[in-house]
């Protein structure tokens, strides 16, 4: 048996960053000064003491903030001073750079191979301290800690929860090999969870981020597995006659919605996370598939062609009559609810292209967020502000992300790889 080691780095590629209108962002501090559209911020290189790690904290933070599209990260090379705490800051240095926010920090080596990372954030105009944090970590946690600092800055300056200390899962097809991989949300540190010479599809994170459910064709038919990321322990969740597919965790992590066929068409079921307690949720002669839960766990949204063409419906998680949710577009597929439960992401087929669309559930209004033509698998960031999805570039699968307001876009491609089926995981502790 050959083990494929694929630690190829995902290259983050910027398609375009449209300047967002900050009016909607909860700017609780006056840092935008009224006119700036992106928050100008300076990140001073962290003093790394005697620690000779490979990671450059300031660079990781800068890349995170830049990628969000909400920040303009200023070049600090022309400033002579290198403060590591607010008390050392000469604010004049940074007002002349037109920075409105300033982050400083340092890494100290502690006994027992541990590190102390501290950072502080200042409002340059008011010359005040905004927030700060200290982390006592192992060297291997430095990258994650950098993402946490970026999250703290993002949260303080935009008023919304950050997303940088999270991971994504996706399928990477290379030659005849399929690998389910997880990577940091900036595409760095990809690790293979499971690889196979038969297809793997539909990865789904458990709400606590410890497990991934997925569909593997290793037995020449679709079977659902649940696998612990840390131990690699696999549970065969569903291996009934016919197909077993489309796993979706309930918000409390106790159950999954799945799709079984037995000897007929796809239908929705729920099953306990240990494989017990199978219950049928839909009973139609049509195709019912792609289940996803409402954040309160009461509803399961799904795709069905019971009305002729595939559209999105919802049904009580305990079963009963389904209600139709989408009416526009030729087809609507792959529903996903935002973390606040207010909007529905989906794939809309307009007759020629498959695109990511977002529907406001209260008003029914739909915004098309992607270009197509074969976009798939929308997945919300934990804060609901960004959507990750699969697209195609030059005949190969690639990942793309778009802000929920459609203004900021990014694309992740992997050299030589074919990447699909992305799923954004929960925030890391």
């Amino acid at each position: 048996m050959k083990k494929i080691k694929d630690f190829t780095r995902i290259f983050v590629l910027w398609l375009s960053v449209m300047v967002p209108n900050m009016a909607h962002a909860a700017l609780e501090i006056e840092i935008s000064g009224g006119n700036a559209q992106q928050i100008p911020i300076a990140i001073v290189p962290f003093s790394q003491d005697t620690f000779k790690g490979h990671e450059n904290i300031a660079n990781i933070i800068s890349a995170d903030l830049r990628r969000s599209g909400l920040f303009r990260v200023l070049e600090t090379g022309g400033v002579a001073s290198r403060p590591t705490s607010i008390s050392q800051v000469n604010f004049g240095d940074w007002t002349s750079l037109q920075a409105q926010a300033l982050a400083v920090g340092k890494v100290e080596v502690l006994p027992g191979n541990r590190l102390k990372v501290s950072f502080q954030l200042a409002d340059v105009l008011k010359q005040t301290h905004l927030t700060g944090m200290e982390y006592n970590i192992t060297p291997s946690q430095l990258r994650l800690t950098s993402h946490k600092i970026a999250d703290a800055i993002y949260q303080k300056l935009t008023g919304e929860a950050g997303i940088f200390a999270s991971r994504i899962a996706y399928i990477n097809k290379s030659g005849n090999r399929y690998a389910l991989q997880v990577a940091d949300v900036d595409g760095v540190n990809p690790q293979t969870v499971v690889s196979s010479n038969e297809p793997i599809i539909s990865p789904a994170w458990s709400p606590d981020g410890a497990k991934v459910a997925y569909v593997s064709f290793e037995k020449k038919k679709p079977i659902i597995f649940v696998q612990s990321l840390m131990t690699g322990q696999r549970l065969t969740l569903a291996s009934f006659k016919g197909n077993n597919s489309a796993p979706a965790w309930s918000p409390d992590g106790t159950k999954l919605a799945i799709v079984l066929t037995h000897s007929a068409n796809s239908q929705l079921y729920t099953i306990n996370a240990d494989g017990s307690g199978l219950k049928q949720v839909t009973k139609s002669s049509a195709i019912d598939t792609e289940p996803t839960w409402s954040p309160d766990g009461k509803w399961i949204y799904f795709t069905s062609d019971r009305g002729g063409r595939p559209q999105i419906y919802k049904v009580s998680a305990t079963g009963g009559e389904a209600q139709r949710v989408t009416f526009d577009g030729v087809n609507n597929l792959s529903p996903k609810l935002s973390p606040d439960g207010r909007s529905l992401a989906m794939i809309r087929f307009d007759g020629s292209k498959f695109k990511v669309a977002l529907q406001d559930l209260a008003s029914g209004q739909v915004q098309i967020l992607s270009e197509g033509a074969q976009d798939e698998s929308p997945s919300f960031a934990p804060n609901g502000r960004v959507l990750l999805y699969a697209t195609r570039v030059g005949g190969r699968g690639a990942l793309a992300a778009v802000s929920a307001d459609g203004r900021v876009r990014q694309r992740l491609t992997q050299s030589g790889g074919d990447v699909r089926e992305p799923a954004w995981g929960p925030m890391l502790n």
Partner: protein
Amino acid sequence: MNNVILSKKLLGALVLGMVLTACKSTPMTDKPAGIEDKSPSAAASQSTQSTDSSADTSGVKEVVIDSNATSGLSPLNDPNSILSKRNIYFDFDSDAVKAEFRPVIEAHAKYLLENGGAKVVLQGNADERGTREYNLSLGQRRAVSVKKSFNLLGVQDNQIETVSFGEEKATPNCDYENCHALNRRVDIVYGNE
């Protein structure tokens, strides 16, 4: 009529070509399907449970799977027999079994009725347009459609399993209709073929 026969021959040649291509591209291993277990103590365990002592919670333990593509030597594979025809093709957005495939289904139904121990898997496929899970369901619907044809000829469900590969085995990057058409297919596969 001649055209029909000719097109059937062409189709057969195409199908054979596809099968050969598939064989070539499938790595053959001499071990049964299983998962590599990196812990030396675990024997034929189906899952890896070993973990190193790293306390890093972002760690990932990798599982490697190598399925075995066994090819059965069976009279069912005699190229001179209609039983060697295993592919049922469908029109776009359709699960209706076309009349031209009726002789193939009748021959396999007869074989299944005469060989009560034989089991067949009907593997549905779809072209790559649309979402993967929905295409899995579309392939399944086609497999179910073929199964119903078998049922009408007297074959019981206990000899048939309907499964779907969705678009996962589709020819990638089809840019013309005939290519998509080859992916809208149910394959008839016996036992452990």
